[in-house]
């Protein structure tokens, strides 16, 4: 017998006591589809888009390390504020897609957005049987917007 092993094998039976004790306790399980797991507010679940705030500046698409954001837009002339004023052009968003099969959830796009258009939502239930369905378009990204929680209060110290 190797060193450190004593005959009545107390360790073996102590371990059995622990498993028996665990068996008699209630299992700490969240019964997932019946009972939803609630992620913390900061959880990086899915990126939501506020399309009205987007100015098609392309910063997020350029900073994305995975090249998974596709944006298209066009310029549109805007009615001048007062008659005879200068005609402004405004960027209109045509397409904003995020390919979640490529995204690695780093959050760089949310960080670099200068116009309050991208937010993290903790939602996680968007698994798809087909990989191509993981490309979320503008409408789908907009739907996530209402799930964006308020940031948590901060520690006082």
């Amino acid at each position, binding site marked *: 017998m190797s060193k450190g092993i004593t005959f009545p094998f107390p360790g073996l039976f102590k371990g059995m006591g622990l498993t028996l004790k665990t068996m008699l306790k209630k299992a700490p399980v969240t019964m997932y589809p019946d009972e939803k797991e609630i992620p913390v507010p900061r959880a990086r679940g899915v990126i939501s888009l506020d399309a009205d*705030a987007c*100015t*098609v*500046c*392309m*910063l997020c*698409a*350029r900073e*994305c390390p995975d*090249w*998974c*954001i*596709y*944006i*298209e*837009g*066009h*310029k549109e002339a805007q009615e001048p504020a007062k008659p005879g004023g200068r005609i402004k052009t405004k*960027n209109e968003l045509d397409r904003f897609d995020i390919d979640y099969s490529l995204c690695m959830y780093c959050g760089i796009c949310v960080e*670099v957005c*200068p*116009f*309050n258009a991208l937010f993290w939502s903790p939602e996680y239930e968007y698994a798809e049987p087909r990989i191509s369905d993981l490309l979320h378009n503008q409408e789908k990204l907009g739907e996530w917007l209402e799930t964006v929680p308020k940031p948590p209060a901060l520690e006082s110290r």
Partner: protein
Amino acid sequence: MSDQPDTSGDTDVNPLEDYASEMSERLGAQEFSVEFDTVRVLVERDKWVETINAARKELPFFSWLSAIDWSRDTEVGEGVSDPEDLEERFEVMCRLSSVTSADGVIFVATLPKDDATIGSLTATIGGAEWHEREAHEMFGIMFEGNTNLVPLYLPDDFIGNPLLKSFPLIAREVKPWPGDVDVEALPEADDEGGAS
């Protein structure tokens, strides 16, 4: 990092400097440099194995071995800052460190591009085998005396040395950059920051 002596400023008071000079003198190395608390000692290619074995008496811990490809021909990323002055070469680096203090030295040997051959450390440092194999397949550097220079990471039929600067990164070439489609010029982020 907080309590490290600041080395980017005046280097005269840096104790690492003394350490490095003493070390390189003792080992008969060519020259040394200390930047950002990183001690580099330049070793002649022919004395590579001998110097490192001698240095292991006080720095026994074999940390890593790798190489840099100094090249003008840059297919990926950003090139060197002064391509004209650059002497194209490989630098083979091996870091040894102490196991009692923070001391550690990176030994550097320069290899010409057309004759990238250097002695192998595997006779005395068993751990060097994998590192040398990696450097061999990634840069094409030959380690004389290492009998097992078969590819470590790459498939057996792979052609090329991926970490050479001249080796293209296919993943970035088969797909157009999504940031390339432009609607208008980039807004100056700093100016627009408080606009909305």
